[in-house]
């Protein structure tokens, strides 16, 4: 009482907040609450460590509107989910999956359900807190030491002095009649400052300003141009400092990024100095014989037949007569400009040196592309061997058949 430097702490009668009564059991609290309610008070409340069974009726507490808030939030969540999924997947960015309808409700149900629950749950908690006036940092009851047991084991009843029916003496009598364990006058709180702590206010201002900063930077970035690369926190190899082919490179005098090979450079494994095997030439003329590397055998012939089937038949046909599927299709389309593939069994090709045939396969001719890059040289020779066999089969005479077999052909 003698704290001169804290004059506000001294309670005065005018600063009475209310009268607090303490009870030991929930039953006592309920009977006290019934009496206070019957006396017609409005600004009063009871306090307990757990929800007391029956106190709502005793105090006449009306049903809260919270369930309606929850329902409203749930419907909002449902509506949000429907419009979000429709707008994003069927309208703004139509997401076509295997030709199915863009807007198909059943597949969107799980997210509708989840957002309904999410919106409802958040609203339930926030709504409960707001309706209850929480957070509620300070209250005159905080200054009453015995009131601390409200979260432990005691039950309290408070009638506020602000109630129109409140009269210090009469109300005290009413409370005494409820047989409380203790009664105490609660002074108005003059100890706790009314304002928020200055530091907290400044911190909030700083945090709010800082929170606007990233948004402001994003807005600026969207409405301005720059030569600098985007800031990538995670690079993901997006930026690769290198010179691409065909680009300018200031390091070299000619300014070209891709360099030409030095004269005489040979890549490893690409010396290919055997003219006969790799180019089909012997002494400056087309070779008339197969090179030594190619074995004249049934295996080579089978290989050649197989490779011919893969690479040549689409145009030249199974028998090599220039009537493959591609040709037939081109004829059917009749768009003009199509040159029929050669019949590989015709006479001038029968007489063509194998080296020249090899060169044709390797580098192509007319609208036949070069097959050198696709078919290894030994396979090219094998194909030529098979082509020679085809030519023989188309232009052969009975004399070409061994005598022992001639009987079967007659």
């Amino acid at each position, binding site marked *: *009482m003698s*704290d001169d430097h*804290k004059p506000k702490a001294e*309670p005065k009668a005018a600063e*009475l907040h209310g009268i607090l009564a303490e009870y*030991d059991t929930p*039953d006592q609290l309920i009977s006290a609450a019934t009496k206070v309610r019957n006396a017609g008070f409005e600004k009063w*409340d*009871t*306090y*307990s*460590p*757990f*929800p*007391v*069974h*029956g*106190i*709502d*009726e*005793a*105090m006449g*507490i009306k049903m*809260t509107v919270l*369930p309606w808030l*929850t329902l409203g939030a749930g419907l909002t969540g449902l509506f949000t989910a429907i419009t979000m999924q429709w707008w*994003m*997947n069927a309208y703004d*960015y139509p*997401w076509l*999956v295997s030709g199915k309808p863009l807007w198909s409700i059943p597949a*969107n149900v*799980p997210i509708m*359900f*989840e957002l309904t*629950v*999410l919106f*409802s*749950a*958040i609203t*339930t*908690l926030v709504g409960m*807190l707001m309706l*209850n006036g*929480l957070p*509620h*940092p300070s209250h005159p*009851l905080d*200054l009453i*030491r*015995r009131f*601390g047991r*409200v*979260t*432990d*084991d005691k039950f309290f009843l408070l009638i506020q002095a602000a109630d129109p029916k409140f009269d210090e003496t009469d109300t005290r009598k009413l409370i005494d009649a409820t047989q409380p364990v203790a009664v*105490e*006058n609660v002074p108005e709180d003059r*100890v*706790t400052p009314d304002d928020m702590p200055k530091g907290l206010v400044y911190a909030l201002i700083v945090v709010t300003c800082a929170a606007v900063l990233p948004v402001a930077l994003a807005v600026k970035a969207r409405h301005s141009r720059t030569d600098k690369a985007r800031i990538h926190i995670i690079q993901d190899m997006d930026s690769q400092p290198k010179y691409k082919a065909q680009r300018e490179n200031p390091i070299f005098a000619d300014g070209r990024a891709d360099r030409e090979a030095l004269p005489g450079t040979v890549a490893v494994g690409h010396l290919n100095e055997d003219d006969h095997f790799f180019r089909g030439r012997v002494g400056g003329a087309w070779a008339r014989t197969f090179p030594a590397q190619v074995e004249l055998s049934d295996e080579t012939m089978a290989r050649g037949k197989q490779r011919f089937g893969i690479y040549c038949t689409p145009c030249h046909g199974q028998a090599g007569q220039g009537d493959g599927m591609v040709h037939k299709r081109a004829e059917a389309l009749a768009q003009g400009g199509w040159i029929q593939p050669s019949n590989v069994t015709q006479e001038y090709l029968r007489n063509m040196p194998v080296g020249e045939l090899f060169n044709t396969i390797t580098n192509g001719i007319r609208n036949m592309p070069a097959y050198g890059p696709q078919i290894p040289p030994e396979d090219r020779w094998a194909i030529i061997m098979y082509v020679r066999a085809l030519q023989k089969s188309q232009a052969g005479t009975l004399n070409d058949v061994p005598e022992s077999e001639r009987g079967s052909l007659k």
Partner: protein
Amino acid sequence: MAAASDLNPFQSPPKGDNMFAQITDNVTRIMEAPKPPRAWYIAFGIALTMLTIFFGSIGWAVWNGIGVWGNMMPVAWAFPIVNFVFWIGIGHAGTLISAILFLLRQNWRTAINRFAEAMTIFAVMCAGIFPGVHIGRPWLPYYMMPIPNQMGMWPQYRSPLEWDIFAVSTYATVSILFWYMGMIPDFATFRDRSTSTIKRLCYGVVAMGWRGSSRQWHRYERAYLLLAALATPLVLSVHSVVSFDFATAQLPGWHATIFPPYFVAGAIFGGFAMVVTLAVPARQFFGLKRIITIRHLELMAKVMIATGLMVGYSYGMEFFISWYGGSSYEGFTFVNRLFGPYAWAYWTMISCNVIFPQLFWFKNVRTNVWAILLIGMIVNVGMWFERFVIICTSLTRDFLPSSWGYYLPTKFDFMTLGGSFGLFFTLFLLFCRYLPMVAMSEVKAFSPAGGHARPHLHGHHDHGHDEHQTDSHAHAH
């Protein structure tokens, strides 16, 4: 009128000696003690070590790329998804206890609901990490959120994996809200019992000025009921959606309509096993034997045998349908589970999930804490293997024998799996030390003096009458 020197909001109230005060004492003692028991330190040390391994192995996987794991075609999902489904399933028991048992008026839940809810949240946190690192670029999961981006693209809402994002994040959010709301009155108790200013301030901030006003309790109870009613279908939806990840695929062994209920039953089964695994040591070390009694453990054992039988039924029904459905691929898949290269995993699963829980038929097993703990741990192992069997046997033996394979995890897979327990237990031990481990206000309400567990005495009618409501109950008496 109080003396001026008494007018200090930072003072401790006197302590009582009644039944309510004993409950408060029992729970706040852990927070009030200057030091936790030695066992807590040992456990925390182990958990922190495992946590370090967890983040270390994840960091290594992120730095090097996920090639450090055993994931290889055809088993691309492998450990990360096995662990994801395992952990998300664990969480479900917490919601079951806090929401479904609440709606079913199983009052015994008050002793265990708080830390079952905590378990849910920590398990969901562990679960969420695995798909996050499994995508290989853990900085890109925001692609799956509807955020405007430079690509001008939106998520594909007709994909089960996208449903998963919404289901799991909603589940995590709602679980945290429910958990937090349940703790507000208990935070207020902690605030009022704290002796140090810093504790009082911290608990005071999270208690938000809760003072136990009846007008506030009224809305609080409504909100609690609403959240329970929302969480109940939510928890069923979450594991159903997780099962859609599998069930909407064409793969034999996955493409089954039984998956949603089968997954939910398994989740509750495994979750209860984890609750038991946590409850037994927690009551032992923190002196909560009077609050979490043998009866509670026995009831949980009964839930485990019930859900265990559902899981066993699902295993059997999968076989029946694979035969009845007449698909040769399905038929092969299930024969392959029994006798194929992963038969060891299948039989581990069957013995852990179907055979061992049968011991709970015996009352002396159900009432022996160590037997319950042991069987709970066995079920944890079994439920992990269930997910392993579903993912690995189906993926390694699908339609084309040319794409068959065999999956073997690497040491980093094991370190990440083991390490996730480190995250879980670190959070759980911190929770035990600093947060109200038991819902004091609910336990008090259901104590003999609390008035909720006995018949109505006051002659009033209608609501506010069972612990957290409800109107329909009023007609029952």
